[in-house]
């Protein structure tokens, strides 16, 4: 099979790679590029553990051909924050006890980000609906929703409204 040359922005960095036409995005990320933060729970689009952001939208990387991301921007959990500078969602997940086994966490964080980026103040119901494609078998979702709500500027003292004020 002829390989396809693609170029895309991965976690803010331009990458050029050659991929087989049938290579899945999840395998490109995990096996080829060593970004194992993105998980495989089912490989069939059912669980959301493999969620990444494609041009800001949450997608299942197990259902996407790697060649499809040519010219796009991809964000994985590795691009969300670092040990030194956690993303507010990462901080909130730790503080609210939203992480148990942690296998759903990377996908959950990215789905949450894709919501907050377009809707800074979602209701609990909107949060629940938005993460419906991300299964969590440990937490029962309550603490995950609490964590997302905490970041979602539900009150004026939350981290992101402070950031916004400081930026002004």
């Amino acid at each position: 099979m002829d390989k396809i040359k693609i170029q895309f922005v991965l976690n803010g960095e331009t990458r050029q790679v050659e991929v087989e036409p049938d290579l899945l995005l999840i395998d490109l990320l995990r096996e080829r590029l060593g970004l194992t933060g993105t998980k495989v729970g089912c490989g069939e689009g059912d669980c959301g553990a493999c969620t990444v952001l494609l041009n800001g939208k949450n997608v299942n990387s197990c259902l996407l051909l790697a060649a499809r991301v040519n010219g796009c921007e991809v964000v994985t959990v590795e691009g969300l924050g670092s040990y030194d500078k956690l993303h507010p969602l990462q901080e909130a997940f730790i503080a609210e006890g939203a992480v148990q086994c942690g296998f759903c966490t990377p996908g959950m964080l990215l789905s949450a980000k894709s919501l907050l980026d377009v809707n800074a103040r979602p209701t609990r119901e909107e949060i629940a609906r938005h993460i419906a494609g991300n299964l969590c078998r440990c937490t029962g979702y309550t603490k995950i929703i609490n964590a997302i709500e905490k970041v979602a500027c539900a009150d004026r003292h939350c981290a992101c409204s402070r950031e916004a004020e400081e930026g002004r």
Partner: protein
Amino acid sequence: MSEFKVVGQSVPKADALDKVIGRAKFAADISFPGMLYAKALRSPVAHGILQHIDYSAAAALPGVAAVLTGKDVPGANNFGIIIKDEPVIVKNGEKIRKIGDTLALVAAENEAIAEQALALIKVDIEELTPVLCPIAAMQPDAPKIYDKGNVLAVRKIVKGDTEAGFRDSAVVVQQQYKTQMVEHAYIEPEAGIALFDGDVVTMWVSTQNPHYDAKEVARNLNIGLNKVRVIQAATGGGFGGKLDVSVQVHLAMLAVVTRRPVRMVYSRTESIKNSVKRHPYTITMKTGADANGRLTAFECTIIGDTGAYASYGPGTLTRSAVHATGPYEIPNVKITAYTVYTNNPQAGAMRGFGVPQVAFAHEAQMDMLAEKVGISPLEIRLLNALRPGSLTATGQYLEQSVGIVSTLEAAAAKVREIKLERRGGRL
């Protein structure tokens, strides 16, 4: 209290930081240079005898490093936490007891080659009638899944005289309850990676039970326990289902034979087919009470489907029998509990360990009795709840620390509070 750093404080989970960053290493996240990928050939039939297996074409496929069958298991070729009845790989001439039993293992340069190799293995299986219902399996003329018979374990509890107890009852409720098989569906499928450095097998596995795993690896490879090192990788949920052996012995065998790192990751389908389940139960329960609602007598028969292998079956059955009366004091009790082999997926440990099934039954009984007596569901429970000084079904005298009454009272207070809120504070 405030002098304590941990007790009474909300402490961040030790590994939460690595998990939100994406750095926590689950078994499938670990790799080594020169690593092989392992896959298992699984039985497509629920009950049969493996007559012949031909893997010559698979072994000849370029990129295949090893194909192993039952004859290649150096040691005991059986495992199980309570009873060693599950084969590592079914040998020629031996029994297949469920869909998913391992017939062969392949290690190859990549997963696609391993899959191709599996498709090239030819198996000849003499099919036997599968036994899919535990009640049918208990009949004397049922096909035998094991030579010793299909009933794996029986538990009996007798306290007082139930006949007399029912004679003195004003109301009696008798019902049959059925509970379903439940899959844990932990979000991370089973996975592991093993290395052999010429002396010691080291593996990182998704497991709840590394010490037990190490013993099973040693027994089945016929090597010393000091030659096996099992390390629990970050584990993506278990709920009891990862207490049993999955990839451990297979990986160890392949690592020793190929002398290369080997990784095995189950697909979701493989995980569901091969992992243990919550036991499905058929429960017949008869409960009597006097005219005030005080419990007088209790009889219960439990038949559990433990599937093809014992796993934690005998243990969960004990818990079911011991807890069948629920958190209530009953003077006259007779419980008989069976757990029975079938050709269904094996059942084992799952959150609650045999108790949720009986809780479904005894709580339904309480509601029906309350209705017959004409008191509330809360009243009948408070009246009969175990307290310090109570005798349980097994005759245990409870001296202290029995929380059910205070729990019921706290729950009732919460219900009143919520009802009040819903009415906007108006009584």
